[in-house]
Every structure is written in structure tokens, then in C-alpha cells.
């Protein structure tokens, strides 16, 4: 007889909302007439994500940590905090997707992705007013996958979530309207390397199952605390970590990041940079502390080394970039290293402020990087977005407001006080030093200084250089992008000046359920 697993629908409401919106979006795509599809799809996606955000916030009101769906999902503080973060950032990304007044062709996405790039049909479609609407259900599925990822209490669920979030991302990375070949190359590269990473994860899962006889995180923990040094277990753990670090774009598993960030349509890049990072770190935290918390000596040195490599590679290679999207990609690699500093700032028993600090950092980094990419969509030349550094010269004189907002985001990424970036950095560094990881913190501080140089370079170009004659122009953003910029800029300042309330929230949320 098959037992029906116990389901707590209240605890699952955020997930159900998002995934339901995604399914509904697919139906709309199939049945609604073309001319109403865009507004309907945007509405559904926004209702799904904003609804999920509201649902997670409601769940925190009378909050009880539970394990539901037959033990496969953990609805605890970190899960809810990260789900809310993903839903919120996801809603902002959807708004960026929906921007229609910047590009003369009225969308950042290709109308028909299957038409070969450069063919007569492609040129014909370039000027058509039709817009691509499949991206909305795809992105919503990805958001659902991410929200599932951070709540997975079971390696198998984690793998399913990984695929649910990854597959739509592979697709929408290839859907840029302009520079289509670059975009398609990015998608293929992302898919191939992502498939490898998934295979690593799956193989690791199999080995861990072989070693412990279970895929449930709590049971793995028990098995690991009895015998944490079995070859099979360690090998499995290593492979699982590799798979997750790939998604989090931690060096040395970062090589896809610059290419994909550059090639993907900028709203998609913003989405990946903000949301995927949150989801991947949510899973890393859960895997390491819930499943392998008692065997931390096995992975701590590894994460320690990887954090250093990631910070150094991100900061140093970021210096040499001349394309803003690639630069922000390396910045993302460096920030992944800073985040791992926070991950290490958590004691094996869950003590220390590392979990709260990492979650807070994810929120601030997500908001800031999303805002920075949103500014990138505004600065354009005749051939779409102008992402080469030299085209930004003198932007401060021509478009003071846009330059000021970008400068704010860059200062925040550099971690200058009174911006959210500083609060986040302070939190993770404090957590790391409290756990005695001060050599790592010193490296992190030096890497911050190096990274600050390339952020500053953009400010120098925008403000202290004379405008170039064939420089970029700044488009007038429509309502969606304006909302995104207003929200992210306000949050970046507010979390820098008065972060108390949100830090408090993160602190309260920072306990895993086993």
C-alpha cells in the first residue's frame, strides 16, 4: 500500500504559487492570442513571484520550522529568508525582462530563437513588433527551481531542483535579440559545462547514497558522524561540492561565467547573477552544515582554499577586462569568494554569525548586482547595449542621474561604507574572524582593495574623462526598469545606512532544521 506523504500546503504555498504561475504561463503561451500574450504573461509571472514573496513573509509571522513533503523539504528560517530573497529578486528580474521602451525593437529577446542567426528570415524578424513571451514562464520555472533548491532536505530533491532551475536558464541565455551568435555560443557553453556539473552532482549523490544508504540530509549527517572518513563518502561529498560551486560560479569552476554573462541578454545576466547565486549558496550552506556539519574537517580546508582562489582570480582577472559585463562577471567570481568567507564563519553546531551574515550578503549582493546590470541595459549605441568601457567615458556629464546610480552600485560592490556592500562585507568578515579564519579575512581584504580598482575605473571614466564623440547614449527607461532601479538603489543605500532591521531578520532566520 502506498502511503500518501504528509504535505503542509501552507509551508509550500510560496513554491506552489511560483510553479503554478509557470504552468499557467505555458498554457497562456499555447492558447492566448498573440497580441495579449505579453501583458498577460508579465502579469502572471509578477503575481507568482510577488505572491511567493508575500507568502514567505506571511509564513515568517507565525513561524514554525517544519520538515514536510515526507521529509523531502525543510521549511526553516534560512529556507524562508532565501526564498523571499529569490522571489523578490526574481520579481525585479521579470520587470527587467518586461522593459519595452529601451530597444527600438521593443524587447531584449529574439522573436524566434530557432531561426538561424543572420538568415533573411532573421533580418526580417529583427524589425517586427512581435515580442518573445516564452521567457516569462521559463524564468518563472527557474525561480521555482531556485526556491525549491534552497529548501531541499534531500539530495534527490536537490538534484531535481538543480535541473529545474538550470534548464530554463540554458535556454533563455541564448535568446538575445542582438549579437545572437554570441548569445547562442554562451548558451551552448553554459549547457555543456552545466551538464557536466550536473553529472558531477549526480555521481556524488550516488556515491553518498552508497556510503550512507540514504539521500536524506539528516540521515547522511548521522551516518557521517559515525564514520565521516569513508572514501566513498568523501569522494561523494567532493563531487557534490564541485557541482554546487559550479552553479555559484566559484573559481576554479567559474570559466563559464564571463562568457555566459557577456553573451546572455542583459536582463537574463542580471537574473543569473542575482538569483542563481542566492540559490546555489543556499544549497551549499544546507549541504555542508546539515548533512556534513559533523564532518566539517573534511570540507573546511577545501572551501578555505577555494575561497582564496576565487577572490584572487575574480579580483585580478577583473582588472584586465574592457567589457563591463565581463568585468561584472569577474566581480561575481570575487564576491563568491567573499561569500565563502561567510560560509566558513559558521561553527559546526550552527553557532556563530556566519549563516546570518552569508544570507545578508546574498541579499545585498543580489540587489546591487541586479541594479548594476539594470543600468547596463540603459546605456546603448546603435547596435544595442554599449558595454565596452571606452564607450562610457564622460557619461557623468551627459546623464548625471544614470551615472550617479551606477556609481552608487559600484561603490557598494567595492564595499565602501554607507552602502549595503560594506554592511555585508563587514558581516561576513566578522563571522570569519570569530571562527578564527583571520588569514582568510586578510586575503579577502586585499582582494577587496584590488577589486575596488576596477570598480573605480568605471567611475573615473564616467566622471573624470571627457565625453567621446561616438560614445553611448542613455535610453529613457520605461516604468519597469525605473522601478527596478529605484528599488535596488534605495535598498543599497538603506541597507548601508540603517541595516539593523534586516540584519535582525537574518539573525532570527539563521537556524537550520535538521
Amino acid at each position: 500500500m502506498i502511503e500518501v506523504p504528509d504535505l503542509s500546503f501552507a509551508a509550500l504555498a510560496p513554491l506552489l504559487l511560483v510553479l503554478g504561475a509557470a504552468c499557467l504561463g505555458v498554457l497562456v503561451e499555447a492558447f492566448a492570442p498573440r497580441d495579449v500574450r505579453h501583458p498577460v504573461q508579465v502579469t502572471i509571472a509578477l503575481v507568482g513571484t510577488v505572491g511567493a514573496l508575500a507568502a514567505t513573509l506571511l509564513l515568517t509571522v507565525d513561524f514554525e520550522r517544519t520538515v514536510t513533503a515526507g521529509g523531502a523539504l525543510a521549511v526553516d528560517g534560512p529556507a524562508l529568508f532565501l526564498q523571499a530573497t529569490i522571489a523578490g529578486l526574481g520579481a525585479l528580474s521579470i520587470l527587467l525582462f518586461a522593459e519595452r521602451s529601451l530597444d527600438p525593437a521593443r524587447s531584449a529577446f529574439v522573436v524566434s530563437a530557432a531561426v538561424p542567426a543572420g538568415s533573411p528570415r532573421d533580418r526580417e524578424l529583427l524589425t517586427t513588433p512581435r515580442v518573445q513571451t516564452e521567457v516569462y514562464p521559463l524564468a518563472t520555472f527557474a525561480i521555482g527551481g531556485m526556491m525549491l533548491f534552497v529548501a531541499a532536505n534531500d539530495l534527490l530533491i536537490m538534484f531535481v531542483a538543480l535541473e529545474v532551475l538550470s534548464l530554463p536558464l540554458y535556454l533563455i541565455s541564448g535568446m538575445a535579440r542582438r549579437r545572437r551568435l554570441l548569445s547562442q555560443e554562451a548558451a551552448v557553453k553554459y549547457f555543456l559545462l552545466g551538464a557536466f556539473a550536473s553529472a558531477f552532482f549526480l555521481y556524488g549523490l550516488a556515491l553518498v547514497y552508497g556510503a550512507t544508504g540514504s539521500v536524506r540530509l539528516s540521515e547522511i549527517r548521522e551516518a557521517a558522524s559515525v564514520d565521516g572518513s569513508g572514501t566513498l563518502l568523501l569522494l561523494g561529498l567532493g563531487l557534490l561540492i564541485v557541482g554546487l560551486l559550479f552553479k555559484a560560479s566559484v573559481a576554479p569552476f567559474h570559466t563559464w561565467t564571463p562568457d555566459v554573462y557577456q553573451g546572455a541578454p542583459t536582463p537574463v545576466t542580471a537574473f543569473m547573477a542575482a538569483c542563481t547565486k542566492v540559490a546555489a549558496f543556499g544549497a551549499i550552506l544546507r549541504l555542508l552544515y546539515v548533512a556534513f556539519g559533523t564532518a566539517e574537517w573534511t570540507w573546511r580546508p577545501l572551501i578555505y582554499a577555494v575561497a582564496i582562489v576565487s577572490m584572487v582570480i575574480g579580483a585580478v582577472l577583473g582588472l584586465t577586462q574592457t567589457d563591463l559585463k565581463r568585468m561584472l562577471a569577474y566581480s561575481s567570481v570575487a564576491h563568491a569568494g567573499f561569500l565563502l568567507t561567510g560560509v566558513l564563519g559558521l561553527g559546526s553546531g550552527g553557532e556563530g554569525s556566519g549563516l546570518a551574515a552569508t544570507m545578508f550578503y546574498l541579499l545585498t549582493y543580489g540587489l546591487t548586482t541586479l541594479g548594476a546590470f539594470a543600468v547596463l541595459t540603459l546605456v546603448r549605441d546603435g547596435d544595442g547595449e554599449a558595454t565596452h568601457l571606452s564607450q562610457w567615458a564622460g557619461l557623468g556629464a551627459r546623464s548625471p542621474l544614470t551615472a550617479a546610480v551606477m556609481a552608487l552600485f559600484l561603490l557598494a560592490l567595492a564595499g565602501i561604507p554607507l552602502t549595503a556592500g560594506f554592511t555585508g562585507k563587514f558581516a561576513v568578515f566578522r563571522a570569519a574572524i570569530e571562527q578564527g579564519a583571520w588569514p582568510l579575512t586578510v586575503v579577502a581584504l586585499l582582494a577587496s582593495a584590488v577589486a575596488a580598482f576596477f570598480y573605480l575605473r568605471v567611475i573615473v571614466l564616467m566622471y573624470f574623462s571627457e565625453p567621446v564623440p561616438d560614445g553611448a547614449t542613455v535610453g529613457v527607461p520605461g516604468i519597469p526598469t525605473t522601478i527596478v532601479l529605484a528599488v535596488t538603489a534605495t535598498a543599497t543605500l538603506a541597507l548601508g545606512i540603517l541595516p539593523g532591521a534586516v540584519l535582525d531578520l537574518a539573525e532570527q532566520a539563521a537556524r537550520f532544521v535538521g
Partner: protein
Amino acid sequence: MSASLYLVAMIGVPAVGAAVVAALPRERSLLAKQVTLGVSLVVLLLAVLATVAFDVDGDRFQLTSSISWIPDFGAEFALGVDGIALVMLLLIGVLVPLVVGASWHEADAGPRPPRVFFAWLLLLEAMMVGVFAATDVLLFYVFFEAMLVPMYFLIGSFGGPRRQYAAVKFFLYSLVGGLIMLAAVIGLYVVSTSQLGEGTFAFDALRQLDIDPDVQKLLFLGFFIAFAIKAPLVPFHTWLPDSGAEAPIGGAVLLVGVLDKVGTFGFLRYCLPLFPDASRFFAPLVLVLAVVGIIYAALLAMGQSDMKRLVSYTSISHFGFIALGIFAFTTEAGTGAVLYMVNHGIATGLLFVVVGMLIARGGSREIGDYGGVAKHAPKLAGAFLVAGLASLALPGTNSFVSEFLVLIGSFDARPVFTIVATAGIILAALYILLMYQRTMHGPPRGVLLVEGEDEPAVSPPTRGGGATALAAAPAPARAALRVRDLDRRELAVVAPLIALIIGLGVYPQPLLDLIEPAVSATISDVGADSGGTDR
């Protein structure tokens, strides 16, 4: 704890003023200047009122106010001043309105609207007040770092020809120092967590900690390197000549007059009381750096042909004296060092302002482009002379008192260092008087020279750039200098500074009364010889 609003207002008023000025329409630049001047005068008034309210014999920190800021970090928005911080606030209050006056036409010719310049200036003032008034280490750190941003934009947007390089160099040097300090700040917090059970950044609580000597050394170095870059002491100084030379005059005055004092202020406020053992351990090293800096920077100053670079190097030399006074660990030398911080702000401020006025007339920063100015612009030359004499600490000027106190106080404790440092005084006379003589006396020559008496006045100055070709040309027979003397605006800027130089040279007692108790408390924190309290 009674809440006093003076300090909050001194941060809030300029911050709000900055927002107002930035929001003014582009064409209302006169209004922007007037608002800026008004706001800076209000801050001066507040500083004076705060001084009146300050009780010299009262608690160490007064005018305190505090409100919970980031409870999770144990950080408070806590303000308060001791005598040292108070005189620095007075210095800020005095300098900023004068800088506004001196920079009245600074941004008029540039591509960027003047209101931006003045908005950054006011924001900088708010942050400078915050740095000196913070009694919470994290709050101090936040102001310490955030202060870079307005100065970075002032140098980068309104500076000389190499402003991009100078601005980035300034920012990165300070940022690296700041990040090293951040590690130490967090380290201090962790120590406080383990000793007090709950982490705190409150200065008074941190002062009570009993830190292991080895940990102290590391933390001391973290703070020290940041302050030594800021102050700047010799191996960390290379950013200052670039920034000082490329910054607009107003920015340069505040940079060496106030911003760099945060470094020496930090030695006194944080390094000495928080890490007394480490301070004693490292004192010989710091003294070596200080004395080397005094001599080395003075020699470099003599070799400069660019007036703004020259003044920057003189400042590095003077910062050596201040560091010497602080790390001699006597009340007398310490008091002298703090007074030196104020006097240097006034004297070097005036020197920068006058040099700026000369540059505004000639359009060149090179000493060789000027000559015989005194005959045609006696007021300008007079102000230049007073500023120069104050810089070389002639008796009767304010700097003499402080330099004398530093040397007397240090001699008791560290005779050898003091004797070497004294050589710096002779070098100071050389570099100042040589610059004065070359530009102000001798035959008329250089960029201000025009043929004939009927020519129109000098064309509007261009930014930076040497017009040395003109200087090289042989002087025609009926050549004459056409140079405006100081106008009323410029006199109004120069006169208060000259009055302060003479006034504080003759009667420094009120400032000494403010400074001495705070310094003596600091020195007793270090536990070294607390020195004679008689002056």
C-alpha cells in the same frame, strides 16, 4: 546620558545643505555658493557654541549623544568630543567657510557645474565632523572610509591635468589602509566579545579591555598603517604630493588641513589608549619614521619646482613633527602635537590659499614662471610672507608655540630624535624663503609679464599647465607685470587666517586649556611618563 544635539547638528546641517545645493537648478550657481557659505557659517557657529558648552574640567567626553544603530553588530551612533576632537571641529568650522570663499570662482570655468563642487564640499564637511566626533569605533570607521568619496570626486572632477591619476591613487592608498584597519576593528570587536561577553565598539568600553600583548601588536599595526597612510608618514606618503598638487585649492586645503589630521588624531585617540603596550613597543620605530620624514620631506620640498607639490611636501615634514610629539609620550609634547595639528591647518591652509591665488593669476604652478610679484601685488606678497613664516614657525606666529612645545616635550623623553628633528626647522626656513624670494622678489618675469603698459589685463587663467615658453623669452624693454592685487573677496579669506596666525602666536592659552586635559588623559592611558603639567 544627556543627549546633546550640537554634534548631531554639525553633521546633519552640512549633510542636508549638500542635498539642497545638489538639488538646485544648474543656472543658479550663485545661490548654490551663497547657500554653501551660509551652511558652513552655521557649522562654525555651532562649533563655537559647542566650545562654549564644553566644560574644560568636566568629563573626558562631553556633548555626548547616542542612539542604537546596528544592534546586531553592537554598534551605536555615538557622538562625543574630548578637547582634542573639539579643537579639530573648531578648525573645520573655521576652514570650510574660508575654503568656500577661496573657491568662489573655482568651478566657474570648468565643464562641471559649480553646485556639484559645493555639494561635495558640504558633504565632506559633514563626514569630517563625523570622523572627529564619533566615539564608536565602527562609526568612526564608516566616516573614515566614506570621507574618501567626496574628496575623490573633488580631486577627480575639479582637479588639475593629472587629476584622474591623483584621484585614484588617493582613493586606493586610503582604501588599502582602511581595509587593513577594518581587519583590526573586527579583531578588536572579537576580543571585546570574548572578554565582555557581548561585542561592542564603544570607545570607553574598549579602552577597559585587557588585550594580550601579541594581539595588541597586530591590532596596533592594523590601525597604525591606516593612520600612517592618512597622516602620511614617510614610507606611506607618496600619494599626498600628487593629490595635493592636483586637487583644487579648496580641496587641497581641507586635504592637508583636516583630512590628514585624522591620521594623527587616530594615533592619539585609538592607537595609544587602546593598545598601550604595543604603542610603547612600536614607539621607537614610529619615531624613526617621524624623524626621517621631517628631514626627507623637507629635502624633497626644496627640490620641487611646482608650488603645490612643494607645500604638500612641507606638510609631510610637519606631520613628522606631529608624530614625534605624539609618540614621545609626554603631556607637553602631546599637547604641542595637537596644537600643531590646528596651527598647521591654519598656516598651511593660508599657504595653499595664497599659492592658489597666485596660480589663478598666472595659470601655472611652476615657481620659475613667476618673479617680482611683490612690487605689483603687495597685499598678495604680504599674505604669502605671513603664511610662509607661519609655516617655518617663526616666533610670534602660531606654529612657533606648537613646534616649540613638541621639541621641548620630546627632548625630555627622546633627546636624540629631537635633536635630529630640529634640523628640520632650518630646512623649513630654506624651502619657504627660497620659494618666496623667487616668486615675489627680483626682476619681474614669468607668465604674468606683458609688453607695454596699455595692454589689457592678463587673460583669464587656464587650468594648470606650465606656460614656460613665455618665461624663457627675453624680457622686452618696456615690459611690466600686470597682476591684480587681492580683491575684497580674497582679502576676506586671507584676513581671518592671518589674524588667527598672529592671535594664536601671541595667546594660545585658550586652546591649550582645551587640549591639555585630554592629552594628559591619553598619556596616562599609555602608562608612560605623564610629564610635567606646567607649561
